[in-house]
């Protein structure tokens, strides 16, 4: 029994998608090729929205809307269901309308590429191209697309590592996470680490790059000595920083003790351990950021800075109104890269430095996926955690993209 019949839900989504598309087709400024066919456009919008709504929910048999044994609907499940419904409908509708719109306008499909002169022609060439692509496509399908699909499937199952059978449990894995205070803390830890790793590594690297990019005595040596830690793995960073920050054998505590007469529990105090992880991560990734900022700074046109200096702009003014805006594309690239590093690659570092402790104060989402899936052998819950992590990283990237779009200045 469903709280709302799936058919009614799909009909509602189709109505909304169709109405929206038909309205857009009639609106001022719509393309003539589309304006002349509002009925077709509306129908297409309705169909694509309905298909999109069903794409995520049909494999689940619309279970978020199911009633339990007592005839009650779980509000949280219904909310998740509505989210899936809307997200699927939005995505598919958006993509279909974009592609069909381009096709109607005769612009061709994206990525098709212009026909270059010098293209190999004929059936033999087509066969050769197919053979060239076959290995890449096969590997991607088997080892990337299938696991992606399987992650979705696993997240709705009660599945244990080593157990031959699985059971469909609908949204239970997600429900458990969302009502688990421990998971909330894991989220918080991940965001905390990511925010400080990204902000500090970008700020420090920009400062150092500012000093190192211009012709300075020994500039080449400075640059060479600054960038190499990126080649070291997060595991190595974890090992080395464990030596420095160790409670009894750590050299840092020895220095603090000799100079100031106190010691800090770098790795054993839950309120300090995250900062230790942040410091080690920044050390690991700083060289990478410096490398790219130096390249970017060398690209800032001299005459612009010179003109501003002649007009009486101070060094700070020149930096904030010329240099920083021109660096925006590189900043955006580095923000995305360091965010990915903070969410995923810190795993090895944390594993060697703090092993997620003390009191789980450095257990990130990625760390927990491994702990739950492989150590505790709960594949279903680990898959649900993976999906939430995936959604969060995609979401953060979109926010960063949106935020930077108004500011990024492309071109030279």
């Amino acid at each position, binding site marked *: 029994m469903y709280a709302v019949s799936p058919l009614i839900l799909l009909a509602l989504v189709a109505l909304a998608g169709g109405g929206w598309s038909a309205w857009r087709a009639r609106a001022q400024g719509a393309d003539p090729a589309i304006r002349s066919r509002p009925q077709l456009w509306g129908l297409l919008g309705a169909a694509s929205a309905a298909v999109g709504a069903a794409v995520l929910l049909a494999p689940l048999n619309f279970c978020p809307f199911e009633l339990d044994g007592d005839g009650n609907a779980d509000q949280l499940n219904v909310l998740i269901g509505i989210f899936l419904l809307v997200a699927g409908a939005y995505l598919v509708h958006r993509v279909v309308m974009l592609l069909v719109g381009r096709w109607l306008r005769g612009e061709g499909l994206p990525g098709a590429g212009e026909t270059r002169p010098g293209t190999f022609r004929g059936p033999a060439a087509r066969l050769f191209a197919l053979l*060239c692509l076959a290995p890449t496509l096969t590997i991607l399908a088997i080892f990337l697309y299938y696991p992606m699909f399987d992650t979705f499937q696993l997240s709705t199952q009660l599945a244990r590592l080593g157990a031959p059978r699985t059971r469909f449990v609908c949204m239970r894995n997600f429900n458990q996470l969302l009502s688990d205070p421990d998971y909330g803390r894991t989220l918080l830890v991940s965001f905390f680490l990511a925010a400080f790793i990204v902000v500090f590594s970008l700020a420090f690297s920009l400062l150092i790059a500012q000093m190192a990019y211009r012709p300075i005595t020994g500039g080449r040596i400075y640059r060479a000595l600054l960038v190499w830690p*990126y080649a070291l793995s997060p595991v190595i960073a974890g090992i080395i920083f464990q030596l420095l920050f160790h409670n009894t054998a750590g050299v840092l505590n020895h220095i603090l003790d000799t100079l100031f007469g106190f010691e800090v529990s770098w790795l054993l105090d839950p309120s300090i351990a995250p900062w230790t992880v942040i410091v080690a991560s920044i050390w690991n990734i700083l060289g990478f950021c410096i490398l790219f900022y130096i390249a970017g700074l060398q690209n800032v046109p001299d005459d612009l800075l010179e003109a501003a200096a002649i007009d009486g702009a101070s060094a700070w003014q020149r930096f904030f109104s010329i240099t920083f805006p021109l660096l925006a594309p590189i900043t955006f690239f580095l923000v995305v890269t360091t965010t990915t590093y903070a969410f995923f690659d810190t795993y090895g570092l944390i594993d060697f430095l703090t092993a997620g402790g003390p009191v789980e104060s450095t257990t990130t989402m990625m760390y927990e996926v491994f702990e739950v899936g492989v150590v505790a052998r709960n594949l279903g819950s680990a898959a649900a955690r993976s999906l939430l992590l995936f959604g969060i990283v995609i979401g953060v990237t979109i926010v960063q993209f949106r935020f930077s779009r108004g500011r990024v200045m492309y071109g*030279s």
Partner: protein
Amino acid sequence: MDVKREEAGISLATTAGRRPWRQRLPKRWYAHVILIVAILITGFPVYYAAVVATQSNTQIFNYQLTPSTYLARNWDLVIYERQLPRYMVNSVIVALVMTTGKAALALLAGMAFVFFRFPGKWLVFGFVLITLMMPTEVMAIALFRLVGIRLQWGGYDAMVVPFIASATGTFLFRQHFSSIPAELSEAAQIDGANPLQFLWRVLIPISWNAIAALFVIQFLYAWNQYLWPLMVVQEPTLRPVQVGLRTMRSGTETGDSFGPLMLGAVLVSLPPLIVFIALQKQFMSGFALTRDK
């Protein structure tokens, strides 16, 4: 190619020497101070690790900053007892096979996208493009179920095969080939070269820079892999270095753990450092090439 890089906002051209305005600036002493401090802070952890690699656990508590006498003992432990060379060999094999395979597959795929027309090209393109947004870490659990449990792989195969196709590499070569003048492939066809000859005689010889760029990015990636091999490699003798370092953590009968671990860490870091420093320019251009899709 340079034009493309400029568009991407990254140029590798050093324009030192033709900057009269900046050279007229007074020498900035504080720049030197900041840079030297930054270098000392960056370098100290590794220097100290290298020093501790020559010490016993009791010597660590002297906190001396010069090499000590215990290197030979730690060396014996790391090399002979804990078998670091075996892990090194595993990692070298995995990294080289993975990078070579990736380069080969990406060359072929990139070539297909640029020099050929076939039905559904945009669909195939999208199929590859979307994988850039699918981080392998997120599907590690499901990939483990497929590779480790269903396929029962647990060695080199498990470490190499799932990652041998690369969207990054494909787009790197697609980008690189798009910047090659079309006359080249026209001329090759007029001379009667088939696609394979064109690839072998023309494309590969002019693509060594892009190949080196892909090599250095992928070598670092392969050498520094940790989470996946930790999950999937069951046989201890097949472990790669990053996982093998775990065995150096446990102390000996005399309780020495820091020295051997640091020696292991330093030795494991040498290959990627050498590759990175030798091919730094290519590393950057690799990112610049893949940036604008």
